[in-house]
């Protein structure tokens, strides 16, 4: 997946890297490994802005699969 330019720039800032002309291995590898995933999360959270509020449950705290992770509360 190749995210839109605006999202690319935003993720680049997020990761503390520039995406153009960056020749060091680490930022490029980080982009390859994480860029599309972060873009997908970003896109999903933007979409969620118009949806009912989500209550954050951190899996690992005993909540996953055992109760309601979401609520209709605004």
């Amino acid at each position, binding site marked *: 997946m190749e995210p839109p330019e605006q999202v690319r720039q935003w993720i680049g800032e997020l990761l503390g890297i520039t995406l153009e002309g960056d020749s060091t291995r680490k930022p490029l*590898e980080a982009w390859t*490994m994480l860029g599309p995933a972060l873009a997908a*999360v970003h896109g999903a*959270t933007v979409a969620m802005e118009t949806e009912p509020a*989500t209550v*954050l449950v951190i*899996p690992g705290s005993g909540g996953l*699969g055992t109760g309601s992770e979401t609520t209709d509360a605004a």
Partner: protein
Amino acid sequence: MGEPWELTLAEASDLIRQGALSPVDLVRSHLDRIAAVDPHLLAWARTVPEQALAEAERLEKLLRKGTHLGPLHGIPVGIKDIYYTAGLETAGGSRVLAGFIPTYGATVVRRLRAAGAIVLGKTATTEFAYADPAPTRNPWNTDHTPGGSSSGSAAAVAAGMCLGAFGTQTVGSIVRPAAFCGVVGLKPTYGRVSRYGILPLAWSLDHPGPIARTVRDAALLLEAVAGPDPNDPSAAHRPVPRYAEMLEDPLGGLSAGIPDRYFPERASPAVMAAFQEAVRVIEGLGVRIHEVGLPACFEAGVEAGRVVLHAEAAAFHRDRFRVRRQEYGPKLAALIEAGLLVPAASYLRAQQVRSEAIAAMRRLLAEVNVLVTPAAPGAAPEGLGSTGDPVFNAPTSTFGLPALGVPMGFAPPGLPLGLQIVGRHFDEATILRVGTAYEAATPWHARRPAL
């Protein structure tokens, strides 16, 4: 009867209970098998033959006194080398932890021992259960990967070196190697099995689970270790069903969903042909088949899991990585370096997206009892530099859903393929029932690699 190592776990268990098989003979048979074939496969990081034989003798004495600990009494097992084992090195497939000897055992290991299982040793794993491969080779063709990260556990079971083994799955590390090695892999619901005493890769994604030759064997192993654990708050306070007693319940009334996307476009033609035949078999067993639409947030949820994996792995390794960077393999080092760049806000947003996807999958699984998919896009790839693609297993790991992998056939030139049966949260019983019926209707699980 052939050699004892040729038995299934359930068969050996019955013979031990009847007094027709000695745990000492069973362990000796497996140790001989390890000596004969493991030099070619490298499935074990280390074995403990003297300790295993001593434990077998102790368990044999208990039997003579009339004490039978249950279906795992005298059963030889392998334990992935990221599970803590008291007094036995736990290196996690790494140079960093080489020589580390825990003073206590993981909850899973303690429960296995209490149930009478005999630990033959530690099975090889990719480095810290990520992607830098173990040296293990696929028993069906040693030029191919056995998959990973539970590489040794799957190969050891497939090659008859133990009757069952434990692995872990954070992305695709139980169901995929099980598929590549032609055995059964069970990734339970997140929280069904305690993670206490297991080296984490990413703690909110890590699932311990068994690998075995048959679905019944996997059910017996799960039953012995599942349940709440005061040492692991994420272990759910839910009753553990007697899975083995429910395996042959009729399937009438059950429905299975076939996902309309994500899987079909990624699977090889050989996998899709075998999968379509598997679906016909399942339908013939009385299960209603429906094509189902995956929720819109499915892919985003899977990607969120990738962000979570990076961040949590980096969090676990950060301090050690700073001072011992050169001792890490290249793939894990890259994961940690990238993960250290993930801001807390992005990690939390990823967990939020993941929660949404979990809720959506729960709604989908309210419509059908199980989902059925191939276990991997293809057979085990050639070469040992990669453990293969976990893309078909990442969703169930990210969403915490239980998944059972069962043998589904073979692709030319004779490498196994796997079927994945996915259930509702904490409904391992239903996927085990479907898996049992499918297994009984097909010949694949009975085939053994020629070694």
